[in-house]
């Protein structure tokens, strides 16, 4: 019955149809506001509409309190955006997660991204208690069992409509231990993940090496992998990501290109420098997408232009990925 209702799709989301049809998928990210203002979501959603196939709605990203991802997703849907709701294990136990998933599915959300979550010490409530009742792999399995077996985590049957999500997860090919990373992906696949978005790729050699392992293990045939693209905003941002962000690798080449981008522009001319940096950041992102399209096993890109949603359209356009296919 369930199969018939969804035409053989797991969730029937636009993202699932794009991926199944073999199109190179494009997703982006939308960060909800640190307020109750729906206009912020609407404005960002309008910048992304028609430009990407689905949009991640972050869940208290970097452990800073923001509008709930499910509520924001509903606002985004009203603007014609297909959301990918992010769900972390940091803030909710298995009861709260399952309750929210039932609600999200009832509201029409069809894509979910299962995450461990950044540690609360990074955010604006560092004295909070964290939950981590489940880890991201256990969360993936729970969502899959709810969808495919109609069971809650405890084993009880879901009487009636089951929540239907295309199940996503993140992978960081740049974190340590590097050799464990393909295995961690394999565990997520075994747990039932349908698609993966990677951490921002700013070290192409390491990413190629990772993907080679993934292809050797045959994992690319079992899961759709979207490579993370994070357009750089300035030379300072590039250096910061290279030197300060745990689990990030940034090739010196990109830092140097960002530094060179403002050559000849006087320090005082902040506006011109900012413009030059942003143009170079977008240029690098476009080149990266073109390179990534050629890497075996990659099914699409996930563009993380955090608080810079305006950058998404020129990147997607520049990479020759517009218009998005209708499926």
């Amino acid at each position, binding site marked *: 019955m369930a199969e018939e209702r969804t035409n053989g799709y797991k969730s029937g989301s636009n993202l699932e149809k794009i991926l199944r049809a073999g199109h190179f998928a494009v997703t982006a990210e939308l960060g909800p506001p640190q307020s109750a203002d729906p206009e912020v979501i609407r404005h960002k959603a309008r910048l992304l509409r028609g430009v990407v196939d689905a949009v991640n709605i972050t869940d208290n990203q970097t452990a800073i309190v923001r509008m709930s991802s499910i509520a924001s997703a509903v606002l985004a849907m009203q603007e014609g955006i297909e959301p990918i709701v992010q769900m972390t*294990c*940091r803030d909710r136990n298995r009861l709260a997660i399952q309750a929210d998933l039932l609600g999200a599915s009832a509201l029409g959300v069809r894509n979910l991204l299962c995450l*461990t979550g950044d540690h609360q010490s990074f955010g604006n409530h560092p004295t909070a208690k964290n939950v981590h009742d489940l*880890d991201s792999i*256990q969360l993936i399995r729970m969502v899959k069992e709810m969808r495919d077996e109609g069971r809650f985590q405890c084993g009880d049957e879901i009487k009636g409509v089951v929540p239907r999500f295309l199940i996503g997860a*993140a992978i960081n090919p740049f*974190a340590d231990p590097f050799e464990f990373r393909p*295995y961690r992906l394999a*565990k997520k696949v075994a747990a039932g993940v349908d698609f993966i978005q990677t951490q921002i790729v700013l070290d192409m050699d390491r990413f190629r090496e990772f993907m080679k392992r993934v292809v050797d293990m045959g994992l690319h045939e079992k899961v759709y992998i979207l490579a993370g693209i994070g357009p750089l905003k300035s030379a300072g941002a590039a250096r910061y990501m290279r030197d300060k962000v*745990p689990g990030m690798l940034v090739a010196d080449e990109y830092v140097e290109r960002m530094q060179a981008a403002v050559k000849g522009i006087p320090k005082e001319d902040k506006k011109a420098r900012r413009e030059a940096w942003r143009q170079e950041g977008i240029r690098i992102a476009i080149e990266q997408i073109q390179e990534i399209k050629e890497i075996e096993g990659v099914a699409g890109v996930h563009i993380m232009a955090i608080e810079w949603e305006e950058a998404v359209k020129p990147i997607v356009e520049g990479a020759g990925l517009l218009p998005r296919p209708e499926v």
Partner: protein
Amino acid sequence: MIVGEQKPLEEIMALLGDARKVLVAGCGTCVTVCFAGGEKEVGILASALRMKSKLEGHPMEVDEVTVQRQCEWEYIDPLKPRLKDYDAVLSLACGIGVQAMNERFPDVLTLPGLNTTFLGLPMEQGVWEERCQACGDCILGLTFGICPIARCSKQLLNGPCGGSQNGVCEVDPDIPCAWQLIWERAIAFGQVERLLEIQPPKNWSKSRDGGPRKIVREDLRLTHTE
């Protein structure tokens, strides 16, 4: 062992309020070994209290005692006859000792002089690290003897999060990433495949989440309840 750290003197003074006669009670076991609440620390804190209360113009009378273990009735029972002389007891034992005193001697308030910090071990002179959270269902057998419940900042059971880099945890470069350590042990034993099995959600009901825990061993009890 249980590792603790003395509270700041200001906080202790505030806790004692207008108590004029105080007994500082140390413990000769874990907190002696971690230099937080043994006989020596009792002596130093008692002098500090005498001095500070005098300077502030309302001197306190402070006596000292250290028992071998404040968490066992037989070691604290001998204190009973002296306790009526005091307005308060300041315990330098762990939270268990403080509670044992309050439970055994309900007429006098025993206050905590330490922050009981964790179950761990001394790494070197002056350095202690956490090793166990008493989760009630030990999984060290699955993780090559390294505890991800106490030592991974997110208590992950299926491998490292994306924040592990150069062997350290994303939370603080002073914290070794537990999963990096587990991975290295798995490699050393040639048993990487054991980490590829998916560990199901943990049964937290055996941990503190199930409510305060209790162990009853009928084979050891002297009196049996029907």
